[in-house]
């Protein structure tokens, strides 16, 4: 068995309402430290995780979104956003805190199929 696998992290939940977005980032960083092939996929409300300009002082919670910009320091550079989900939320690529690759649903589904491990948050 190969010790280098394709890990995809599927993010479908909005930030702050639940902890999952933050926890996903934690596992992403650890997985990168294990030298695995890491991709992040943003679907549905998960797209909101990437919105720039978050101001979390009023809810007394740490703003974790700058971490997305630090991912490239860990060689995590595959960030995919589902086009239909992005458009359904009135967002475009300029709204995101980090550069992403926008994929159609069909392209996203194909990419999921190619993974060894898919973790959902």
């Amino acid at each position, binding site marked *: *068995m190969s010790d280098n696998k394709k890990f995809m992290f599927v993010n479908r939940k909005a930030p702050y309402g639940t902890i999952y977005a933050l*926890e996903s980032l934690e596992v992403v960083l650890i997985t990168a430290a294990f030298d695995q092939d890491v991709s992040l996929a943003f679907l549905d409300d998960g797209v909101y995780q990437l919105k720039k300009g978050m101001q979390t002082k009023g809810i007394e919670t740490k703003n974790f979104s700058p971490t997305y910009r630090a991912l490239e320091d860990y060689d995590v550079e595959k960030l995919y956003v589902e086009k239909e989900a992005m458009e359904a939320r009135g967002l475009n690529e300029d709204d995101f805190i980090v550069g992403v690759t926008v994929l159609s649903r069909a392209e996203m589904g194909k990419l999921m199929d190619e993974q060894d491990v898919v973790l959902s948050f």
Partner: protein
Amino acid sequence: MKFGIVVNEGPYQHQASDSAYLFAKAAIESGHEVWRVFFYHDGVNNASRLTEPPQDDRNIVNRWTKLAEEHKVDLVVCVAAALRRGIKEENLAQGFRISGLGQLVESGIKCDRLVTFGD
């Protein structure tokens, strides 16, 4: 085949822990190995030995302990999630151990399949 299982929700509130347990049991009965169960997020509450369900209810925590003892299943509780929720060595049920997220990643690397149960 070697299975890894992830449990993201606490016992009694959500069905995830029950589904995960029944899946693990069926996998073992089918001749497969359940290498590790990783408890994450509120799932760490599955490891509290202070749990006392009513007598006519299933004992979710004991069920995991028994599975670990009988089939050498490695029950790992995420340390960061556990400390946030007051799960520590002093109230950890038998058969569980506390460790880092690396153990989750390792499950993905070592197991043939990683199956997640959550909300």
